[in-house]
């Protein structure tokens, strides 16, 4: 009896030892990835402290030479000459993107779902993904050349009675150019997710709706859209969080000093003043301010979504 117990304990100890050994091995395997994340994701977060300092290039983040200046840079950013313009531009561009960039893939997925001819459907879908795979640089080049005085889109506009001019340096046109480019590039690829959600909706629900006399629009409204609710909610929350961080890569390629008044956003401003002019502390403060607001917006959107639809990120 005692021997048996001792054997069980020995066995347990052995298993315990094995688990420790295995855990060490598992951690060793995960180590390179965890280390990369630490270096390239966590250290920059820690580097945010320079927004509270008078950071001199080449210096460390802490230590003797560091001059702490509190909220000086934040104050300068908020009271600064460009603050209202930056916030306004960011909100306008992201707002347009939220309106059209988020809805276009949903509408396209709903449209595609109505196509019963399989080969035609496949063709339309495949073609719609293609713009996503073209690089932003090439897309920007195309857009600019289409919108010059004798470009193909300008021809189209003048056909519809709009004045002929260089639309690519036109302030009034810029937000629409930016939005249209984003939508063109992303609607097909963005719809993949929605299409897969639609295809997972129980066909029985459609049968039931039909029996109840629902027409096509009513089926979409009462079956398809409710089936997509959770994914749409989550995508909207993510988009809300990104409202203050518009696609500055595309803007950097499309804007010119002639359109800065409507195109300059916090991301591009940070690039020009931070990277090109070396105002590190100031632009880090601007960036931190943006991420904090973005985080708060995500939080708020999540809360609202949880209340309204019962779905949320957490």
């Amino acid at each position, binding site marked *: 009896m005692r021997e048996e117990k001792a054997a069980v304990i020995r066995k347990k100890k052995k298993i315990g030892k094995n688990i420790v050994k295995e855990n060490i091995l598992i951690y060793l395997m995960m180590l390179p990835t965890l280390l990369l994340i630490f270096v390239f994701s966590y250290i920059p977060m820690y580097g*945010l402290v320079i927004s509270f300092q008078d950071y001199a290039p080449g210096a460390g983040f802490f230590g003797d030479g560091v001059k702490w200046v509190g909220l000086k840079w934040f104050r300068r950013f908020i009271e600064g000459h460009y603050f209202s313009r930056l916030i306004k531009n960011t909100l306008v561009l992201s707002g347009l993107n939220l309106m059209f960039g988020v809805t276009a893939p949903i509408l396209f997925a709903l449209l595609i779902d109505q196509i019963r001819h399989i080969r035609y459907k496949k063709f339309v879908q495949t073609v719609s993904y293609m713009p996503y795979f073209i690089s932003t640089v090439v897309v920007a080049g195309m857009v600019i050349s289409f919108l010059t005085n004798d470009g193909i889109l300008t021809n189209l506009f003048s056909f519809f009675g709009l004045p002929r001019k260089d639309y690519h340096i036109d302030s009034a046109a810029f937000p629409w150019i930016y939005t249209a480019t984003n939508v063109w590039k992303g609607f097909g690829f963005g719809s993949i997710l929605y299409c897969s959600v639609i295809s997972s909706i129980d066909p029985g629900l459609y049968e039931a709706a039909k029996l109840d006399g629902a027409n096509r629009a009513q089926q979409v409204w009462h079956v398809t859209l409710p089936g997509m609710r959770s994914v749409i909610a989550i995508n909207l929350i993510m988009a809300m969080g990104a409202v203050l961080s518009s696609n500055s890569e595309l803007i950097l390629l499309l804007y010119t000093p002639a359109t800065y008044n409507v195109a300059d956003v916090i991301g591009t401003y940070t690039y020009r003043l931070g990277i090109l002019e070396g105002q590190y502390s100031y632009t880090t403060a601007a960036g931190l301010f943006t991420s904090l607001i973005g985080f708060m917006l995500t939080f708020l959107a999540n809360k609202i979504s949880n209340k309204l639809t019962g779905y949320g990120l957490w």
Partner: protein
Amino acid sequence: MKHKRRIREGNPVVTIILYLMAGLTAFIALYPMYYILILSLSEPRFAATMKVYLYPKGLDLGAYEVIVKDSKMWRTYRNTILYVVPTTILMVITSTLAAYGLSCRNLRGRKFINMYLLIPMYFSGGMIPSFLLMTRLGLYDSPLSQILPACFSIWNIILVRSYFRTIPDALVDAARIDGAGIVQTLRNIYVPLGKPIFAVIAVYTIVGIWNSWFGAMLYLPHQEWQPLQLYLRRLLIEAQATINGGDDQLGGRRTDASRSG
């Protein structure tokens, strides 16, 4: 009979309209690319007027000849490939190892690791602290600046992990009972079964790196190591400067082009 059919198929006029709308969407997606293609194949005198709409006017491969002979462009192609290949391989490895670790059932401290992965998805240091870090690490002006920060992705880890979750426990248990250790289970069960998801993240990574230019603009000041997209951007800026001729509206962009080039 007719009535029943209408309920099932809906109004044929609406059906036709929907098919036309889908066709129009496909046209909008496709035509700009086709237009660029026929423009590039047309004779320069027609291309210059931009009045080429349906098919190339006067076939001329001159533009392609210029490209093929452009040694600078070939160098940037080489650089891009040098960045794409190792980054993609490393991406698959780092994602797989981390995802595998997270799917081991007796992993201790999983909660902590999950938190560790979650935080950077919502919060990041941003452009300037990353730039300063890269400079401090000596990666500024080094080709490694295009590989190291790009060879992992938390999103991909989560993607691979959720795929690994679909592998039946029974399979893993059977391997363990047969005496397979942690490494053997990974090599003989997870890696062969995970091939589809590896392909997915590899494609994402290849497309992402192939098309990226911003990181290269930040960290690679010399043409020697610049990738294709940065070269294309320089062409774009030069073209814009020509379009705008004398007026110096692009002054700001020219300076930052000369900086990156």
